[in-house]
């Protein structure tokens, strides 16, 4: 999924100025240069994307769920089951095309922002059901 955006987005962004420069100035070698830059970015991001993809992880612990992610900016978030108010499974058109889904956990705090992207739909539904069940078992008032 991320590989796909990495592959598609930079060339598109760079193509627009490249074409404009080419048309306006007629010096198409500048456009070539811009395209080359786009290619380099794609390659760099491709190397990172696998690391970034590998950096996502989650652990179901006895009382809470841990989610880690990030290569440059690392973060670890811990959500107690008893605090989860809502577990969502989302799948956008691109994600659906690759048969992927994202699980999002909501608590009473808007800052929690706990999401696990790039799961298979089966794993996503399993996780959702499991978390809902655990949430009910640990439920506590606010």
């Amino acid at each position, binding site marked *: 999924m991320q590989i796909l955006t990495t592959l598609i987005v930079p060339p598109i962004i760079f193509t627009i100025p490249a074409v404009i420069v080419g048309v306006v100035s007629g010096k198409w070698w500048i456009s070539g240069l811009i395209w080359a830059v786009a290619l380099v970015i794609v390659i760099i991001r491709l190397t990172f994307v696998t690391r970034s993809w590998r950096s996502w992880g989650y652990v179901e612990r006895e*009382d809470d769920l841990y989610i880690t992610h990030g290569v440059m900016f690392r973060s670890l978030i811990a*959500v107690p089951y008893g605090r989860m108010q809502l577990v969502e499974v989302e799948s956008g058109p691109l994600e659906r095309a690759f048969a992927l889904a994202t699980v999002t956990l909501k*608590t009473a*705090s808007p800052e929690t922002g706990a999401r696990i992207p790039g799961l298979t739909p089966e794993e996503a539904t399993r996780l959702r059901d499991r978390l809902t069940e655990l949430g009910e078992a640990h439920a506590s008032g*606010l």
Partner: protein
Amino acid sequence: MITASPNPPDPTATPIKQTERPHPLTPLVRGWLILVAIAIGWGREIVPGGAGENQFGAGGLTWLLLVLAVVVLLAAIAGFITWYFTRFVIDDEELRIESGAIFKKSTKIPFERVQSVDIVQPLAARIVGLAELRLDAGNSTTKLRYLSRGKASRLRDYLLTRAHGQQASIRDLDQQAAASVFTDLGVADRSLVRVLPQRLIVSFLLSTEWLVPAAITIIILVVTAALAAMPYALGGLIPLLIGMLTLVWRRVIGMFNFTLAESPRGLRVTRGLTNLTSQSVPIDRIQGVKTSQPLLWKPLGWYRVDVDILGYGHDDSDNNESNASSVLLPVADLAEVELAVGRALPGFDLDAIELHPAPRRARWLRWFDFWTLRYGWDDRTLITEHGWLTHSRDVIPHAKTQSVRIEQGPVQRRLRLADVHVHTPRGPVNAVAHQLDERAARELALSQLDRARAARAAERQQRRVDVARTDDHRGEAELLAAFGIGRDQPLGSGGESEVFAIDHDRVLRLYRDRHEAPRQTAAQLQALYQSWSDSDIGLELPLIIELGELNGRFFTVDRRFSGRNFSGWLQHGDMTQRRAALITFLDATERLQHLRSPVPGFARLVGDGAPQQFGTLVELLSNMLTGPTQSSRDQLERDVPHVAEVWNQLHAALAQRSVAPAVVHGDVCPPNAYLSQGPEGPVVTGIADFSPHTVHADPLMDVAGALIFLELEPYADAAADAAWLEAVAVERHGPEIVGWIDVYRRFYGFYFSNAYAFDRTLYAWCLRQLGRSGGSQ
């Protein structure tokens, strides 16, 4: 019948439920508000542009006025219709609001769901003496506008009473005096902090959020004036000025006459110069407290206090100054801040928390404020501090923690630093511990979850106890009335019962509902006391004259002790007198062992299945510990290092004790003793309240109990007196009892440890008993 009638309707005359309409002036006030809104809207359109004027000739102006008149007329009609079709009922049974001309809507709110009730008085409404009642229930806010001011405040008091699960009749409240026009404080409210206008204005002028835009404005004005380019800057200046005006409106006009008061139902805030808002702050919904101090307030020692209130954050977007706000104090000095924070987070000792600074290497990343970064915690709260231009301190009770996040950027990784964010529901409080050492961050974040879980469990337990406590008073009034005594004559109350005086010789003991099997216990005690009535050990002992039940409440009538309660007396006696009396207290305790036990051998004498006999002392005592430690086990494992070791040592020691059993009261403490004036001074002449703690076991248990429970007395020298009394006891019984007293310290420490759920002082005492035993044996 349509208007809010000043006299309550006669209940017998109107079998059909009477619904009411809001005050008849309502459409007028609402129409006025719409007119103002239109005027402001048009004004904004016309004034800044200025260019549109030429388009309107004389004809244009006529049209404009005509359109305006039509709009106002329509608004008035709409207002009238809304008013006409709005009806509400607030009585002893229900709270229901019906509205809508075409689409009928009926909202019924259960009393228990009402979370807060605010009164808002916009200027126009205020002039004619009307007020809006705003009910917050669950996630929705229901508005009832407009009512007369007095009625609104009466209904507020009534709804808040009902919301707390108490029974009240709306008619009782009708006699209450109306609130004042300026502050809207009820009669029962006690003002805690009043913010004086001059302080509010000065503090506002010195606040960072005002000075920064003001400085920018001045700089822009000076620079553009110098360059003669003023007209070009206007586009930027106007929004800036509007922003500053809004700030004045919110911080000065909106906070004018700010009063924080304490009402029987929690805290209450009233504020506002034009719009008067009265808002209740439900303490159990406070999620965190933030104290902040702009740089220039520092020399003046002023602070601002905000709170996160669950559910109040939702209105953030619509910037209406009359909405519920999170300000607890807009400006206050340290003493006032401590007072307010003490009320908002009752029972928290924030000063005792040790704050840790960020490591020095954090200066590379936070060169602008690294010296202000602090964090610290105890078992109930987390505190973080940061900021230089505005220094802020965020306090979050662990029980309110939602989730925890550790973050680390690339530079931080190089410096081995990380941030810890502790998330709470939406609001101004944001606890972030910035730039901790990696390892400290990890430990803080992971242990925070454990602390949060423990705090939540404790809070749940507390709530259960509170609920039980309100249930306790069920049917009490009738019972007291049956005996012809008033609520104002309580002699004392304990965990199990409340005691009221009937006359000189008798008292009424009212058992709490939750107390397990009071009937059985009381019957056993009655038999026990009866069996002792002929034995003379030189002490007054209790006697149960009558057992009974009325309205589901169980009670006994007991013989009244002569003399006065020892505990109350101890707090006032001087040291010589106290110690003389304590000797007689020890004598009385020692006499108890001469009482006859109904069964031979080690046994529990009162309680479920009693008399229950045991082969050895250690079997009996470990049976007694089973119940209490079952519930406190997890808590003890957290609070006492090596608790298993202490437990095993205790059992090993008890197994070695060989002693002939005697009657042990189990809870000989000053509140259970009575004192009379003897020929040589005050003498303890009575011991009351035998209970399920009473056993047939080691007589030394009571001697040890007499001195160690003395430490719990709430007077200054209690600990010193207890140590002195221990020395006296050792002199009497020989030095070998020192070790045994320590053993019983641990025993009672475990035995009363289930107090963690309802009595923190007692639990702290238990921990002391368990802790001090560690080294001595």
